[in-house]
């Protein structure tokens, strides 16, 4: 089945079984491997992408459901090789350690800041509660999102 949608501002068309997971379409068909799989059942958030402004676990979405949507993945955050302020803040604050949760965290944080440019620490905690990190204890991730919000 041929499905059309937009990824990181570019129109894409894939020919895939309708029930193929969006995660696999991104990683295999489009070779956008920045989006990660940590659990395959929507618990860890490593596969988070933004679909029409909402954070979604791409491991739970069949590709047929994203026809005509706009998707943002971690690859869509930096432009021309320049880190966006949120990515820069993660780097400066120590928000990325092993890096496997980082794409999903950035996506969750991006969606939060798009809706609420000045979140409190509690609002940040709430926004990333669906994204598991085993390295940082979340402290420096929250610091990074807070710093990015101040630069907004």
């Amino acid at each position, binding site marked *: 089945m041929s499905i059309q949608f937009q990824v990181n501002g570019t129109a894409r068309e894939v020919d895939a079984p309708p029930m193929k997971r969006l995660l696999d379409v991104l*990683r295999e068909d489009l070779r*956008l*491997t*920045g*989006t*990660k*799989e*940590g*659990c*395959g*059942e929507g*618990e*860890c958030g*490593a596969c988070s992408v933004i679909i029409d402004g909402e954070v979604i676990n791409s491991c739970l979405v069949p590709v047929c459901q994203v026809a005509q949507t706009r998707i943002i*993945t*971690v*690859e869509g*955050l*930096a432009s021309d090789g320049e*880190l966006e302020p949120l*990515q820069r803040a*993660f*780097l*400066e*604050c*120590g928000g*990325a*350690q*092993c*890096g*496997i*949760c*980082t*794409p999903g965290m*950035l996506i969750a944080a991006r969606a939060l800041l798009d809706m609420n440019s000045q979140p409190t620490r509690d609002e*940040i*905690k*709430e926004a*990333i*509660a*669906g*994204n*598991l*990190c*085993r*390295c*940082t*204890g*979340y*402290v*420096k*991730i*929250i610091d990074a999102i807070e710093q990015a919000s101040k630069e907004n």
Partner: protein
Amino acid sequence: MAVGQNVLRKEGYEKLTGAARYIDDITLDGMMYGKTIRAKIARGRITSVSFDAGFDWSRIVRCDCRDIPGKNYVLLIENDQPLLVESEVRHYDEPVLLIAADTRAEVEEAARHIRIEYEEKEPILTIEQALAGEREVLYGADNVFKRFLIARGDTDEGFAQADRIIEGEYRVPHQEQLYIEPQGMIAIPGDGSLTVMGSMQCPYYVHKAIKQLFNLPDERAIVIQTTTGGGFGGKEEYPSTIAAHAALLAHKARRPVKIIYDRAEDISATTKRHPGIVRHRTGVLSNGRLVASEIDIVLDGGAYVTLTPVVLSRASIHALGPYRCDNVRITARAVATNTPPNGAFRGFGAPQVAFAYEMQMERIAAELGIDSLELRRLNMLGEGDITATGQRLTWSVGAQDVMNEAVSRSRYVELKKDAGAAPATADNKRRGVGLAFFFHGAGFTGSGEARMKAAAGIEITAEGRARVLAGSTEIGQGTQTIFCQIVAEELGIAFDQVEVQEPDTSRVPDSGPTVASRTCMVVGRVVQMAARDAKQRLLSFVAEAFGAPEAELIEGKFVAGGRELAEFTDVARDYVEQNGKLVAIARYASPPGVEWDEDSYSGDAYPVFSWGAEVAEVEVDMDTFEVTVLKITTAQDIGRAIHPLLAAGQIEGGTLQAVGYGLLEELVWDRGRIVNNRLTNYIIPTSLDAPEMETVIIEKEYPHGPFGAKGVGELPMNGAAPAIAAAVFNATGAFVTEIPITPERLQMALEKKAVKE
């Protein structure tokens, strides 16, 4: 100046843009997908393996133990764990067969057409069953993998002096490392050689295992670490098995093979933290002074020896805690059970005994009616004091400093006074505060480092850069960054002029495994020595070229007598042009005077200890018995912090894992099978479970570490569980002796307390 600065992490850009390539992000031409077919009983014998005759097997590659060219063992301490079951099954989900196909879907389909039949035996599933001797023995004569005895002074005499003898039994559970990147490997067959790449902590462990399984000489097995999404010990020994599985399929298929575990397989089949039972019998004077201590430890090693003796060793050495006691007797055993082998997990035996020794201190304080902080202050180790193994602490003892800092920053004394007196809130919640004091020996135990003689080096390139050559892996903790800082500082060049060779056994020396809080302190020191050697060679070169024997290398320039002679980059280029490449390799040597006797298990167990104190503030819901950790304040002495931000990140991350250990994480078993092998039901802390944290780094410099650094990786795993349990005791009066402190367990402890009252 690079050391002590919060430079941007070396591999940060790739991790933030999604460009970093983890093993599952790599696809090779002609690559097949492999899968492990596992036993579905805990103990018994395979009677038959049958492949559905109606299924087309022509597209599937199949391997069993007969396909292994060398010995069917995963090399570690003892040759007892087969790579693939021959007949006897010793734990649920033990690997039996391997299959590979062109796609993941095909290999999954093929797996459904294999049938294995068994003759089951009664499994040994718990420590109690292993020791009872009622079921058929699994290991040796009595199911005991390993024993240790640490004895100092005369405990009989100590107990005779004691005013009180206080006993306690403490239980600690399995814990899953739960790195977010599941395990995975790709193997690529060559002409009489094999290349394996993947997610791992220890490329040379994999290298040694592959060599034995395939009868390969050193250079014919190549192991490459790809970007690794967390390890925490879980990628110390188990990757050897996955690498060898992928290699066996690749060897047979003559094509590259990728194996990626899904989360359920990863939780079910790979190693866990050792569960255990720790019993304390302590003789104290009425003022609280410890005069005798008998400690008995039993750990559950699982089905094979793997790293269990080493975990048990660390548990034994740390069992008394950071306290003085002249009469000590520590006995330790690890037993065999029909459960997946337990293995390395951050802390490596120490968090288990830390929960026990700190809860014993709480118990002693409560029974004597003295404050537990005062009890700790009275007995805590300090410089010049002697540990349970007879080690005199001569340098870098931050015990007092961490205690004072944690207590004052957290306002522990005031909080404890208030919490004890306060009634429950209107919504029936109680608050409490608890303290833990702990230590951790960095590097291998005893003579381990002296035997290992870890090698690492640097290369000065023709482009005028310095490249670190080390087998130590970046697994999130910052290896690449701190090594570059150490080299930049030692050479006197900019951080950006230093890079790291990705670990590849054909390109880097064996620096030993990336474990045991040893990467910075031990390998970092070796890297520093190699840089010093390279610098000397460059200085000799400059001395000759410029007739300047007094030349120095400062901020990227060679200078003599205030005169600038040349840029580092130019000298490096000229040196390489004239002499060929400049590679300096150094090896670790133990600091002078550090001695260990393996037979009596006494002496300097570690060259130095790191120290920590931690205060937890909790709120307990007295209706639901849920415990919420509000805040953790911790002070940790890790020697010089090469990168304070990364070091704080280690402390915060380790602390939250320890909160999970104390409160949330628990495996549910059914006849040897892990029932909750998913992230839906094995619960690790989310951002909403994470307390506010205040972290203070104390820098008691260690004279034999790189620029004074000690180990930091594991120390933070030791404190939170007992601090939280002490806070729950303070809040509710319920003394919990087993973690995790689930609502059910807390309810039971409260009922027990009510009966006593």
